[in-house]
C-alpha cells in the first residue's frame, strides 16, 4: 500500500522509533505504534478535543496532525502526567472534584489544562473557562471539570512549575 517512513517521536521524554505512512495521524501513531492508548479519539475531525496532547507545551488535537509533522517536537500525553505511582496535582484534582465519569474525554481535558497552564500560568479564570469550552464531555455536565481546572490554576499560581521530566 502506502510506503512507510522511519521517524522518531519523542513522547513523554522517551524516543519511539517507528515506521509509519505519511498519512497516519499523530493520534493513530501514538496509539498504535507507541502503544500509548491513553489518547482517545472522539470525532477525528478536530471538534471534540478527546485527542488533545501537548507538543512543545502547546495543546494540540492529535487527530488533525500527521505523525511525521511531530518529529523533533516534545510530545506529551496523559501517560506522562504521573510520576511513577504519584499522580500529578491536576490528576488528583479531577478525582477529588468528581470531574470524570466514563473517563473517555478526561485525557483530552487533562492535557488541555496542562498545556494551557504551562503556556500561560497567569491566565485569568474566565480565559481558562473559555478554553475549556473547546472540549466536549458527554457525562459530567462540565461543572466539576471547571472546578478541578480552577484548583489547578490556583495551584499553578502558587507554585513554580517544575520542568517536565
Amino acid at each position: 500500500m502506502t510506503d512507510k517512513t522511519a521517524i522518531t517521536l519523542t513522547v513523554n521524554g522517551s524516543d519511539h522509533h517507528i515506521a509509519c505512512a505519511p498519512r497516519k495521524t499523530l493520534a493513530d501513531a501514538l496509539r498504535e505504534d507507541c502503544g500509548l492508548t491513553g489518547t482517545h479519539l472522539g470525532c477525528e475531525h478536530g471538534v471534540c478535543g478527546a485527542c488533545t496532547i501537548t507538543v512543545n507545551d502547546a495543546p494540540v488535537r492529535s487527530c488533525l496532525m500527521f505523525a511525521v509533522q511531530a518529529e523533533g517536537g516534545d510530545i506529551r500525553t496523559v501517560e506522562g502526567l504521573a510520576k511513577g505511582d504519584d499522580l500529578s496535582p491536576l490528576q488528583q484534582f479531577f478525582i477529588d472534584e468528581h470531574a470524570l465519569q466514563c473517563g473517555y474525554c478526561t485525557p483530552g481535558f487533562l492535557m488541555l489544562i496542562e498545556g494551557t497552564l504551562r503556556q500561560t500560568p497567569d491566565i485569568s479564570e474566565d480565559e481558562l473557562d473559555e478554553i475549556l469550552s473547546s472540549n466536549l464531555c458527554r457525562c459530567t455536565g462540565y461543572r466539576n471539570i471547571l472546578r478541578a481546572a480552577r484548583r489547578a490554576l490556583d495551584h499553578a499560581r502558587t507554585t513554580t512549575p517544575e520542568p517536565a521530566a
Partner: protein
Amino acid sequence: MTDATLPNARRSAWIGQSVTRLEDRPLVAGLGRFVADMDRPRQLHARIVRSPHATGRITDIDCAEADAMPGVTVWTAERLGEVPRIPFRATKISGLEPYVQPVLAVERVRYVGEPVAIVFAEDPYVAEDAAETIFVDVEDDNPPILDARAAPGTFLPGISTEPVVVEKGYGDVEAAFAAAAHVVELDLATGRHSGIPMEPRGALAEWDAGRGHLDLWGATKRPHWNRDRLAEMFGLSPTCIDLHEPHVGGGFGIRGELYPEDVLVCMGAMRLRRPVKWVEDRREHMMAANHSREQQHLIRAAVDADGHILAIDETLHHDQGAYVRTHGARVADMSIGLLLGPYRVPAYAARAHFRLTAKTPAATYRAPGRFEGSFVRERLMDAIAQRLAMDPLELRRRNFIGTSEMPYQRGLTALESEVVLDSGDYDGLLTKAQDFCGWNDMQAEAAARRAAGEAVGIGLGFFVEKSGLGPSELVRVTIATDGEIEIVTGAASLGQGMETAIAQIAADTLGADYTACRVIHGQTDRITHGWGAHASRVTVMTGEATRRAATELHDRARDMAAELLDALPTDVILDGGRATNTATGDHVTLGQIAAALDPVSPRRGDRQPGLSAEAWFHNTHMNYPYGAHIAMVAVDTETGRTTVERYAISYDVGRAVNPAMIEGQILGGLAQGLGGALLEEFRYDQDGQPLSVTFADYLMPSSAEMPEVAIQILEDAPSPLNPLGLKGSGEAGVTAAGAAIAAAIDDALQRPGLVTRLPVTPQYLHARLAQFDAGGDA
C-alpha cells in the same frame, strides 16, 4: 492483638458518603482499556459500507475494485447467505417480526447509513480505502417517508409502515370530557436526538477454532442477554461464547444493544478464522447507532372549574426510523404508560402510533419516553393554569397524588410491569424545591429585569422517574486471605460509577474499607446470570443483591472470628476491615478470618470452606423517584438564542449511597437534557439525507452552555421495595429539562404556550414568535 480504644463511630459507614470513585485512578492516568485500545494477534480490521440512499431497491453492489485489492475480503448480504435476525429484547408486541433489521441490507435500503457490505483488511486505513471503492446502486422507487404523522406507506407487500398502535387507558374518558368545565388541547413535538457517547462503538471478536469458543470484547449494557442471542443466532451453546466489557466511554441507553455490526464482526472472526476488530467513526455513529426522542403529541385534558383534571386523551406519533431494533415498541409503549407523572387522572385514553420512517432506527436514550412525556404533560399543566388564570404551582398541587394514597396503582403498564407508584411526597418536594431555589426571589428578579427590557423567565417541570427495573440480579462476594473483597455482578458499567456505589454497600455491610473492594461487571465468564445496566437499575438491583451476599458473609465471618477471639458472636463487631471482641478489644482482620476458613485450615471445623457467598435479588415492580427542575433563562430576542442562567434540581432518591456521584449523574443528565431542549437535533433533507452527522452540525452543549446548577438530594421517600430504600438516579437530570426550559422561555417572552416543540433553536424561536404573534397555533 489488643486495641483498647474502640472507635465510637462505625468507621465503615460508607453508605451516604461522597467518597472519591474507585474507577478514577486508571482513567486519569491514561490506563483505561477501551475496546479501541485492545488488539489480538493477527487481527483483521473491518469497515462497514453504508447506504448513501434513504430508500430504494438495491440493483447492484459493485465490489470489483475492492475484491482485487490484496488481503481484502468483502461481504454483501448475498455473499453472507442467510443470517438469523437480531431478536427483540423488550416490549415484544406480536407483529413486529417483519420489521427487524437484517445485518446487511437485503434487496432494499431503508435509511442513509444502513450497512450494505462489510470489508475486512489487514490495516484499518486499507479497509477504509477498500470500502470507498464499493458502489451501491439504488433505484429510487417510493419517496422516503420522513414524518410519522404522514399516512403510513408500504414496508413490504401487504405490510404497512405502522407495525402497531399501542393503546392504554382506563375510566370513562368520553363522559369526563362531556362533563368538563374546560377542555385544553395542545399539539407538541420533540426533536430527534440521541445519547452520543464520546467513545464511538467498537467490537473485537476472536474465534478459537480448537475449543470452538468465541470471545467478544466491547460488550456492555446487556452482556448476558447478548451472549445468549448470539449463541442462538450462531447455533452455539451459550457456554461457547463469552462477552467482555472493557472500559466504556458512556452509553446512555444507546450503547450495548446488539447491533448488526456486532454480529458481522463475530461472523468475520468465525468464518475468516482471524480476530476481527471494528471501530466506527463519528459520522457512522451519527447515522448508525440508535436515535431517539422524535415524537408528536396531540394531548387534550378535561378539567373541572377548580382545575382538577378529569381525564386526559393522548395521541402519540412515534418516529421509529427504518427498522425495529432490540427494544421493540418499548419507547412508544412507555411514553404513554408513564405520561401521567405525579398527577391524579381519573380517566385516561392513549394511543401510540408506532411508525417507521426512512431514518436511522430509534430506541432508548436516557429517560426514554419521560423526557418527551414530561415536556408534554408539564406544557399541558401550564396551559391549564393559563386557561383557568391559576398559579401553575397551585394547579399542580391540586392534582398531585397524595402521600396517603401511596402505593398508588396507576392501572397502566410500562416496561412490562404494572405501574405502582411506591412512595412519594410530591407536594412536600415542591415546597422544598421552591425554598431551595429561592422561587420568590427568582420571580421578583425576573420581573424586575423584564421591566427593564430584558427577556428573562422562570420555568418549572415536575417529574416522576422510574428505576430499579428487575427482574433479578445475582452477586457473588468473596473475601480473599489478604482481606481484599471481590464483588462479581452481571450488571454493567458504562462510566456511571457503579463500582464505587456497589463497593460502598458491600463495605458498609461487611465492616470493611470500600477501597478494599474490586467490582467485576459485564463479564459473562465470571458469573452465570446478569441483567446489565439500564433503566437506572444497578444501584437498586445489584446493590440489594450485594447487601444480601455481604450480610451472609458478615455473619459467617463473625462466627469464625468469635472462635478465633474466644468470644461470643454477639460480642464481635466487624468494622474497619477487622472483627473486634468488644469485651476485650482483641481483633482479627478479615483476611485472617478468610485464612482460618481455608478448606484445609484446622480452625475451620465444619464451617463452610472459604469466605464467599452468592445472593439473588428478585423484584417484580419498579420504584419511582421524583423531582422538580427549575430553570431561569434569558432570551436574546435579536438572535433568538436562549441562555440558561441558573438551574435548580430537587430530587428524592429514597436513599443516597454517594451524594457526590448522584449530583454528578444529575449534572451530566442535565447537560444532555439541555442539549435536547435547546441544541441537539438530527435533521434530514427532503430526500432523507441526514444533515447532522458531525459535531459541527449536531450541536452538543459545551461547558459554555452549562449554567451553575444547584442540586438538592432528598431522602424523604425511601422505596419500600428494598431494605435500604434505594431508588435510582441515572435519569433525573434529563427528565424535566425540556419541560422547564420551555416554560422558562414562555415566561421570558411573556407568551404563554409559545413553545410547542423541542429543541428551541434560534431558527425555531424566530419562526414560532412570528406565528404566535400573528395569532396562529403551533
